């Protein structure tokens, strides 16, 4: 047992002291904070410049109604749009377009709206501008045009409407998430949280799986494994390595969770300081989800790391390991692909079945738990199945490891690896 802890300690200390670990630990929260801040910036940023536009109206009589609709103002109080020119039923549409295009290219116009003939029957108008990247523009202008056209259609049928919005405003559906702890209004934060956590699990399972594989491979290629297993049993060595790397991952998780709780506590204030009045959806991760994250990471890590370790032991060099790691990587990547199935309907039979399958359950059950609390027995069953599978996989991986670390030379075939299982 003492030797086991020596292995754990070496694995932990040497890894926590690497630049890579410090890098990943600091960089990932910094990056995610940065992304968070950047999205606040994008969400709150608005153009502070009035757009000069022209309206080319081939039907006739719409310009004033549209101009009136485009009355929204910028944060600095200036109008968002100024209609600097209107061309009503030109003799030559071709010539008018050419002229407007020239103005846009010259910079005196920011864009122009083209309404086709018979717009009350037509389905589309065009807005020409140099910058089509601002997707809020489409909505604003689209609304203005639609409102004007609908008003006209109504008046054509003898209905006079002063303010169309009063008549046709939609009834919104407010989504309310029901959990045992009560109801919370859904603004998309549940999905964001679920995806972020599942992504995190996905990335760390692969990352630390590969770290374990490399660690095994390093000991094998440098042949230090010969010295090591003359002092400890291969199982002690393997277990010590996996536990050591798990401790590294856990350290990283704790740092991240700490950073995230700080962000959760102060992120709103930060955003408010940046732009008063901004509403930031505060992401709260319920304790059940947090505990499940750690439990599923740990079990999933033991499952996958032992497969990765067996791959590292069977390979004799980095290239072989790259080619042989498919059996470990494939189920993780498949879980990632199955995200959609769960998100679409977390309680469908397919979702339930997939999230109980041990190789997928770490990621998929976590996803289900964070989207919609599944029945407790389903969680318990998935953990039980995962635990049994993990123990089995660890047992077989240890047998492959034991033989593999002493086998040098060409890449073993699957048949050879299966034969190793029978060695005493």
């Amino acid at each position, binding site marked *: 047992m003492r*030797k086991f802890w*020596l*292995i754990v300690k*070496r694995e932990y200390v*040497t890894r926590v002291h690497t630049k890579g670990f410090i890098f990943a630990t600091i960089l990932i929260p910094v990056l995610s904070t940065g992304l968070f801040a950047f999205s606040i910036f994008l969400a709150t940023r608005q153009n502070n410049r009035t757009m000069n536009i022209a309206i080319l109206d081939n039907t006739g009589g719409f310009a004033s109604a549209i101009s009136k609709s485009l009355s929204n103002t910028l944060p600095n109080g200036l109008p968002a749009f100024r209609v600097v020119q209107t061309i009503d039923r030109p003799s030559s549409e071709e010539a008018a377009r050419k002229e407007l295009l020239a103005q846009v290219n010259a910079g005196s116009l920011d864009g122009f709206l083209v309404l086709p003939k018979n717009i009350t029957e037509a389905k589309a108008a065009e807005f020409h501008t140099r910058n089509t990247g601002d997707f809020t523009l489409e909505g604003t202008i689209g609304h203005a045009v639609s409102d004007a056209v609908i008003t006209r259609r109504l008046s054509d049928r003898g209905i006079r409407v002063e303010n169309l919005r009063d008549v046709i405003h939609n009834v919104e559906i407010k989504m309310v998430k029901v959990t045992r702890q009560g109801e919370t209004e859904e603004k998309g934060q549940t999905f964001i949280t679920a995806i972020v956590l599942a992504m995190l699990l996905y990335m760390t399972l692969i990352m630390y799986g590969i770290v374990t594989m490399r660690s095994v491979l*390093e*000991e094998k*290629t*440098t*042949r*230090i494994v*010969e*010295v*090591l*297993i*003359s*002092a*400890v*049993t291969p199982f002690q060595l393997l277990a010590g390595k996996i536990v050591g790397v798990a401790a590294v991952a856990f350290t990283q998780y704790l740092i991240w969770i700490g950073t995230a709780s700080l962000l959760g506590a102060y992120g709103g204030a930060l955003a408010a300081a940046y732009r008063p009045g901004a509403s930031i959806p505060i992401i709260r991760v319920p304790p059940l989800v947090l505990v499940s994250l750690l439990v599923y990471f740990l079990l999933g890590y033991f499952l996958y790391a032992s497969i990765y370790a067996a791959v590292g032991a069977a390979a004799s060099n980095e290239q072989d390991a790259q080619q042989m790691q498919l059996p470990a990587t494939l189920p993780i990547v498949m879980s990632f692909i199955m995200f959609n199935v769960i998100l679409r309907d977390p309680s469908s039979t397919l979702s339930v079945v997939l999230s109980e399958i041990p190789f997928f359950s770490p990621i998929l059950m976590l996803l289900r738990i964070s989207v919609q609390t599944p029945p407790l027995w389903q969680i318990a069953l998935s953990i039980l199945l995962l635990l049994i599978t993990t123990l089995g996989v660890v047992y077989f991986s240890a047998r492959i490891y034991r033989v593999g670390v*002493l086998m040098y030379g060409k890449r073993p075939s699957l048949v050879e690896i299966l*034969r190793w299982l029978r*060695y*005493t």
Partner: protein
Amino acid sequence: MDAVLIDHVTKSYDGVTAVNDLSFAIKQGAVFGLLGPNGAGKTTTLRMMMRILVPDTGSIRILDEPLTGRTQDLIGYLPEERGLYQRMEIGKILVFLGALKGLTETEAGRRTGQWLERFELTAWAKKKLIDLSKGMQQKVQFIAAVIHQPPLLILDEPFTGLDPVNAILVKDIMLELRAQGATIILSTHRMEQVEMMCDSICLIHQGRNVLHGDLREIKKSYGKNTLRIECSGDGNFMNQPALIEKVNHYGEVIEARLMPGADPQEILKAAVQQGVRINRFELVEPPLNDIFIEKVGGARA
């Protein structure tokens, strides 16, 4: 008491028998040569002694104990294929390996300091292994094998990669450890090293013990049947199939195995008749190299 007792041990993988009914004993305090051609089963035998592999049948005892985790700590091992953690400070590597072999970390640290000093590596203690020259890495690896002062030391080609000065240092340490009661197993293909250092040997071929015992006695049993001649001139006088079984020319030196009952005087006569100048003419025991080749080549035929 025997330091190692191997009793009818057999080990096979996938139908290939690597070690076949092997038995030998190593006396405590001996320097023992474990010899054999490549693939003879030496590494498998060593690995079984270190409990890395388990024999299919037969038993192994180390210092009169059956193999356990405890006996593992009694062995120091320098594998033929060298290698340690590339990106770890050498001081830390040695403390780790010493602790893994049963020392406390404080004690391992103290001994690491002493050994690094002895090998003039103190200034490098905080350097990563990868920053050291090949020769220095060899020295670190040797320290890793002896740091826990094992009563049984297994050294596989201990002198490769060492310059003559360091080779002497390693040899002196081996003799020192032996004087303190350690038993040393030397596995090498360099027969002159075996002849200089070993008391007894075991020659393994195709997993079997083909020759073992006290080195002097083995050589004596062959008798003085080998002629060593130092001469200048044409070596043609040695072409006498009736008298000579086998000749090896090494430039100035010629070694020849005599046919049973052949009279070396006849050869000397032939040399003198051909006008060859003889500087030395000596009857000796066969070199271990010849015994090795005879045993292995003979078994192969």
